[in-house]
């Protein structure tokens, strides 16, 4: 930072000293062509140094901050995962090898959390993306107040995990909850959204779906607008109706975007944390009385900061990362397949 400030000072003073420039006319001189510095002068050396170094100076903040707060911690997490690190006694860290991982793999709660993460991930991602494509298709029509519709669909995105979940907790409550009350009208018995496994997992998923469908719809809409109109024209000349056009033109053209959203949503689902935490209220970090909606993200928080075993929390974090990498690899394989089969 200091060096760039000095460079700024240099350039400012050198501009002032430029031949023919008067105070106040510096801007005009700059626009009108101060002669390029001759070779060999200190100015030209400074200029060349500036050309070479400034790109690195401009990208440096990202790499410095990411390195310090992203990459180095990532490696340290692996290191801590091989240690016994207790929240109550941070100074004493003893080497335990793979104990934390063994402990993890033999824990029912870990496998439960893995399964819950998968189930909640699927029932939140699939409906979310299907609905988003539908909404994007509707928004792609010429509409009155098209911007207004888009803004409204995106509004849930502005709501935080915490605020949204608190509201949904009340909507889903057993007694006097809005959802059970509405179900009563269509003749369905009240559902215990907190205690039942599928009920609570559905409820947690619905919060994710509510918050992210509009966002994904806008991403699909952007991709739809990039589809050339002549594709639709020739399709309709071939006698394709709107549905056929949607199936045979829109969906194939959206394939890269769909893949992109699947990857992003999968990453999001793997990390799911805030919704189940707040949905559980007081027993939040356990993911319900029977751990029925404890996700991996929540399990890590529970082990690390509620139980206080930071070594084990690190092991969970790294396991999550490995799972993500496997998911990414599977995604890649599927894409290759799809591309080949076309």
């Amino acid at each position, binding site marked *: 930072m200091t060096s760039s400030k000095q460079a*700024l000072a240099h350039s400012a003073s050198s501009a002032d000293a430029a031949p023919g420039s008067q105070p106040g006319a510096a801007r005009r001189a700059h626009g009108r062509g101060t002669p390029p510095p001759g070779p060999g002068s200190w100015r030209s050396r400074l200029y060349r140094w500036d050309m070479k170094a400034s790109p*690195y100076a401009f990208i440096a903040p990202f790499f410095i901050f990411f390195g310090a707060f992203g990459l180095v911690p990532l490696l340290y997490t692996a290191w801590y995962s091989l240690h016994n690190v207790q929240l109550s006694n941070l100074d004493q860290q003893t080497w335990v090898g793979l104990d934390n991982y063994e402990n993890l793999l033999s824990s029912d709660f870990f496998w439960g959390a893995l399964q819950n993460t998968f189930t909640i991930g699927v029932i939140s991602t699939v409906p979310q993306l299907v609905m988003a494509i539908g909404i994007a298709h509707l928004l792609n*029509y010429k509409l009155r107040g098209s911007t207004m519709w888009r803004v409204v669909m995106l*509004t849930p995105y502005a709501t935080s995990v915490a605020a949204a979940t608190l509201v949904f907790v009340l909507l889903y409550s057993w007694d*006097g909850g809005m959802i059970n009350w509405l179900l009563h009208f269509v003749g369905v018995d009240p559902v215990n959204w907190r205690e039942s496994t599928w009920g609570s997992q559905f409820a947690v998923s619905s919060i994710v779906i509510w918050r992210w469908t509009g966002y994904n719809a806008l991403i699909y809409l*952007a991709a739809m607008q990039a589809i050339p109109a002549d594709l639709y024209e020739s399709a309709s000349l071939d006698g394709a109706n709107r549905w056929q056009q949607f199936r045979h033109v829109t969906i194939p053209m959206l394939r890269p975007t769909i893949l992109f959203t699947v990857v992003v949503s999968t990453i999001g689902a793997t990390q799911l*944390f805030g919704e189940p935490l707040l949905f559980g209220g007081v027993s939040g970090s356990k993911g319900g009385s029977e751990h029925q909606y404890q996700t991996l993200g929540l399990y890590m928080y529970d082990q690390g900061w509620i139980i206080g075993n930071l070594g084990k929390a690190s092991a969970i974090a790294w396991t999550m990362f490995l799972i993500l990498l496997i998911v990414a690899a599977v995604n890649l394989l599927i894409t290759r397949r799809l591309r080949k089969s076309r």
Partner: protein
Amino acid sequence: MTTSELTPPQAQDEVARKSGRDGSGRRRLLGAGKQLHGGPVTYVVLAVLAFVSLAPLLWTVVASSRTNQRLAETPPPLWIGGNLFKNLQTAWEEGGLGTAMVNSTIVAGTITVGTVLFSTLAGFAFAKLRFRFSNTLLLLTIGTMMIPPQLAVVPLYLWMSELGWSNQLQTVILPTLVSAFGTFFMRQYLVQALPSELIEAARVDGASSLRIVWHVVFPAARPAMAVLGLLTFVMAWNDFLWPIIALNQQNPTVQVALNSLGTGYVPDQAVIMAGALLGTLPLLIAFLLFGKQIVGGIMQGAIKG
């Protein structure tokens, strides 16, 4: 600033050409690609979906205006009651939302300024400057988006404790100050929106890199900087995982305060709803004012991403 301004000029021309019309007017540009009109059914379906989007928020207002007792009764209240201001006041005082609002504003504001500034600088370098390894470094930047934040929290927590920074705002700010997405977003924008000739001309005039950044890059990037700023502010305001680990109830952000309202033993649901409403209000107001730009920003980030 309109949404069409967010699209780089060349892209606009392309869209106009593709739509096969004169391309005048923003709605034509936005609606390009397909020119089908929405029928009554479209509007009805959209209205239902819009209601689903807004209903939980509208109902939060209703619930905030009632008593805890009334919220437990069936049927649930559907219209505003008389307790709104009382509940808001209780949430503000007992939930610590006053401090939380100030803290969140500081945190999200600083993160926004840092992210926009650093992303613009790096985005400019990646878009317009030639240097060794630029492609590799850009790929690396994008690749970092794959790394989940969970992987950093244990060491960060330990180090921040050692530094004596527990429960202080810089603990939340520093790790979030730069953004790979932001860098990529600015790069994609500047590739098209900033003519290379402008930079070359300034170079020929002997302008230093920082001069070019100040007089050429920043003005050209301003629309995208505004959008990135809005998106970053929303993200920073709503960030959950790290603030909850790094801060406690004594010095919370809004999300931490809401978490303690929800997972604590506060029995008053109406007050909790008032807290949720207060915590969302700043962003809802931002949405009313800048919704168009935020929508445009997400769509643009998506096209290029």
